[in-house]
């Protein structure tokens, strides 16, 4: 029992970190511009396919492939912002929700036609497994979790230490004032959307290395990201990491005690309850 629990716990934590950076992308965008990016899932799916194609077509190491995939996410996000979001940034919520959802439909529509909906996977099991006492984990999971932590660290340094990162935080804090002191807020917004999308594609890529996927898989992870974001506080990137761990733990540990099908019930009930009781999230919202 303890062994199973330990194994589940480890599994949960490892996948939780990856969920965490996916949610970080979502929460970063919300924190900066108050937009819930409903194209988040499909962007993650594009990250999955990015890693998949670079790995299968060009034989690239899937972890190295995350770099060009992340860069692609950045550009894609900036384009999405410019085309779909900028015009509705100050409009009522419904507008930005529907604008990003229309991007979701476009990506899924084209993606389904291009890639079909058959399952793919990045077969990188050659990395082997790691055994520590009762726990055996595929090394890919461990490396993915470490990569996710690395990305988190880089993001943190970027936001705290670089001029552009400070701009992002300033715009998140108060767009009007940031504009008044000469920060090019539209460009910072576009960049932030790009950054959020880059995190999404990287998270997608990391998931693709461990789990099979289709172009539609993103929506599952998008919903998970919502749960995580709310757990950690909307707009709070550090909260997202913690929220990811919590969700990972729930997914890892709950099936030990009850049917797996109860996991989503718990997740979503928790999600709604937190929105109601503590909308600032467990750790508090942005700022």
């Amino acid at each position, binding site marked *: 029992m303890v062994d199973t629990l330990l194994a589940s716990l480890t599994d949960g934590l490892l996948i939780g970190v990856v969920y965490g950076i996916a949610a970080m992308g979502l929460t970063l965008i919300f924190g900066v511009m108050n937009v819930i990016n409903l194209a988040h899932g499909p962007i993650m799916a594009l990250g999955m396919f990015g890693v998949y194609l670079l790995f299968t077509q060009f034989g690239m190491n899937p972890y190295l492939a995350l770099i060009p995939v992340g860069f692609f996410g950045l550009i894609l996000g900036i384009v999405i912002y410019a*085309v779909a979001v900028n015009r509705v940034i100050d409009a009522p*919520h419904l507008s930005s929700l529907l*604008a990003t959802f229309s991007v979701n439909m476009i990506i899924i529509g084209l993606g389904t036609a291009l890639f079909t909906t058959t399952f793919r996977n990045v077969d990188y099991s050659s990395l082997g497994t790691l055994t520590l006492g009762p726990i055996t984990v595929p090394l890919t999971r461990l490396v993915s979790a470490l990569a996710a932590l690395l990305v988190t660290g880089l993001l943190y340094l970027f936001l705290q230490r670089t001029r552009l990162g400070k701009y992002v935080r300033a715009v998140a804090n108060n767009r009007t004032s940031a504009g008044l002191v000469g920060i090019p807020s539209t460009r910072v917004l576009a960049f932030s959307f790009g950054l959020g999308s880059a995190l999404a594609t990287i998270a997608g890529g990391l998931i693709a290395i461990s789990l099979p996927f289709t172009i539609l898989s993103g929506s599952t992870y998008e919903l998970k990201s919502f749960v995580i974001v709310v757990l950690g506080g909307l707009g709070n990137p550090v909260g997202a990491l913690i929220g990811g761990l919590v969700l990972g733990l729930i997914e890892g540990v709950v099936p030990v005690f009850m049917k797996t099908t109860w996991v989503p*019930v718990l997740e*979503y009930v928790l*999600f709604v309850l937190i*929105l*109601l009781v503590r909308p600032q999230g467990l750790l508090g919202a942005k700022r």
Partner: protein
Amino acid sequence: MKAWRSPGLWIPLVIVVILAAYPALTDKASTRETVFNVLLAIGLASSLNILLGYTGYVSFGHIVFFGLGGYAGFYLIDVLGWNLLPAALVGGAVAGSIALLLGLAILRLRGAYFALATIGILEAMKALVINMDFLGGPTGMELNFQVYKDYGGAGQMLWTVYWAVAAIALIAVFLSFNVKLSKFGLGLMAIREDEDAAEVMGVVAQRAKAYAYVLSAILPGILGTLFFFKQGVIEPGSAFRLHMSIELLVMVMLGGAGTVLGPILGAGVYQVLRVSLLTSDVALLGLRIRDIQLAVAGLLLLLIVLFIPSGAIGWLRSRSNVLRRVLE
């Protein structure tokens, strides 16, 4: 009654009546199915509009009431052997009661938080139903086709359900108009424009919003029973489909949120467009339109949101005073 003479009421009613009568005149099954989908969408979109258009609360998971009503009615018919009509009414009542309970809780949330909560509730409900063995769990329930005999066989049943859905669509439009021109509706619109200012003026927002939420849930619940009775099967994936929820939002936006005619127009245009995209042979950049119909619909939605956010009817109303008087 003054309302009956208002073109804002009879224009949409006449449109729906003509639309509903059309398949009976042509007597073609395929036409009836297309119009059935349009009428269903009119009923659902007009109901959603009460919450979305009048009250300004974005329910992303509104289809949950369609699914709940569907499950409730289906269970009564399939397991307890009820007749369709009472089952459908109970389906509506179940949807309305659950909306009241949920509404009292989540209508305190505003903006994005409310929208997220509705998605959460839809997904939670779906996940919950999957675990309910008496509702058939993940595979759902299937009607014994013998049941249709009570309704004059499958062929006759299709017409019965068709007329029932048409009637609900008419009721939805009638309701939509009457709410909009009532004191209650005025309170809702005040909430939409500025909830705090509305409360300072004396609008009891929490109560008004809860009523609006319940009103917007009842007809979808009835429609759920009717729809899944016709399908003969119900399962969690088809009853609680987030995508369908968002399609409803698109219809309301397309026609014009907060207008009576808008959801009707939006439902019609969206369904017709969907069918024509699905059957189109035209190719775009080497991809057949029918394969990328979702992307084309997405592009269309984006264009509407970016350039005519008030929807077709809203746009027309803003163009001329005459139209403003005639169209509601």
